[in-house]
């Protein structure tokens, strides 16, 4: 899983090494490091934001090891989704099973339906849905859209995609 972590380093040499060493020890994959050297906290420490990929069970151990190294861990949060788009679906969205459609995306683990607006003007009329899909990365988002495309074709739903997405 992808995790974001806000830590604070003392403004003395060698602190960054102490921060990164536990990550290496627990085989976490470091995605980004934002070192705000120009900013100082009221404690005169330097804030650093990390994004890493690791097993959920390693997070506690990494945190403990950092604190053992004298590094303050301010916040640890799941930071999974970085890409987000809106998609419109038109057809018998509800009668063909809206929950199934959502489940197909949610069960991927890399994308989720985060928001849904639905309009059903009449029992025999086409309904319309606008869904927001969040995904871990661009490629994952494209994979989620490919899944949605297959589901939409099977359920005879018209899928309206944003113009900047490969349709």
């Amino acid at each position, binding site marked *: 899983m992808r995790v974001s972590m806000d830590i604070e380093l003392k403004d003395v040499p060698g602190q960054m090494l102490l921060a990164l060493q536990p990550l290496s020890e627990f085989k976490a994959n470091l995605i980004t490091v934002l070192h705000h050297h120009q900013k100082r906290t009221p404690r005169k420490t330097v804030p650093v934001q990390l994004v890493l990929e690791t097993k959920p069970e390693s997070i506690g151990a990494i945190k403990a090891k950092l604190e053992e190294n004298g590094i303050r861990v301010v916040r640890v949060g799941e930071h999974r989704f970085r890409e987000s788009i809106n998609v419109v679906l038109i057809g018998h969205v509800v009668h063909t099973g809206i929950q199934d459609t959502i489940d197909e995306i949610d069960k991927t683990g890399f994308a989720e339906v985060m928001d849904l*607006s639905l309009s059903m003007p009449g029992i025999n009329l*086409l309904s319309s849905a606008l869904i927001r899909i969040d995904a871990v990365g661009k490629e994952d988002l494209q994979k989620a859209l490919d899944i949605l495309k297959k589901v939409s074709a099977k359920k005879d739903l018209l899928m309206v995609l944003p*113009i900047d997405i490969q349709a």
Partner: protein
Amino acid sequence: MKTVRCSILGFGAIGQGVAEVLLMKKEYLESIGLEILVVAIVDSRGATVNPEGVDLADCLARKRMKGTVAIEKFTGVEVIKSVDHELVIETTPTNIVTGGAGLQNMLAAFETGKDVITSNKGPLTLKYRELMEAAKAAGSSFRFEATVGGSMPVINLANEVLAGNRLKSIKGILNGTCNYILTRMLEERASYKDILAESMELGIAETDPTYDVDGIDTACKLVILANAIFGLDVTYRDVEVTGITKITPEALEMAYERGHVIKLIGEVSRERIHVAPRLVPINHPLDVRGTLNVASIDTELAGEITVTGKGAGPIETASAILSDLIAVYGSQ
């Protein structure tokens, strides 16, 4: 003064628009050294021919009064083969199944070494390569700016003004009827059926609107762009097409609340040709309203260049034909 003798084949709205524009621009054309002499006009019922030049104002009046200009029982091909002239202005109706009279007219024109300027998409959608080869073999000029986007310059902009730029893609709204329907559905919160009926009443949509609303017209225009600009060899069958018939006012409204409009977007690149309703951010360059057309050309050196304009209308389409005419004969 250079005299260009021409025929107008097809005297419906576009053909009449050409005649009006030639009358309107007579003095301007003479000022750049061109005298355009229309020696024949052909409509579905026959032809009027005069090697000294027909009276355009008289032909327009006769067409309006009697529904035809026909005096003699000549077809377009017969006029091409028997009347001495250099240029065929081909404005017969589009037929994407067989190419219609337009295809026969264009092939006959090239066989007899004539130049062709056309607004007719059908032959270009079906037989682009064959027509280009016939034109080349004959040493004829063949121009068709009016086939895509009416007065909005796309083909000549891409091939001439942007010469030297590698073009990556063109995407845009190439059908004014669909754009009108989607714009009105959003404005009026009205159903597709209601706005379609309104469009037919106003003459914006045809009696049989299938060609527009199913995305076929947009697909045909993309085929022409793919062949003429991207150097591909494709036909209508190579285009993935989805029309607008399923779009609901609720979908338009929900999209709008999230900052988007839904537009029928045609997209062409070397890899893919595609027509479908898409979400376009409000105030994006492709967010044009009403019957307007728009095309955004993604270029290697100049970035994105977007043009917008009236995609249909007799005078607007005739404007593209006039610019082709000046491009062919103005510099000779």
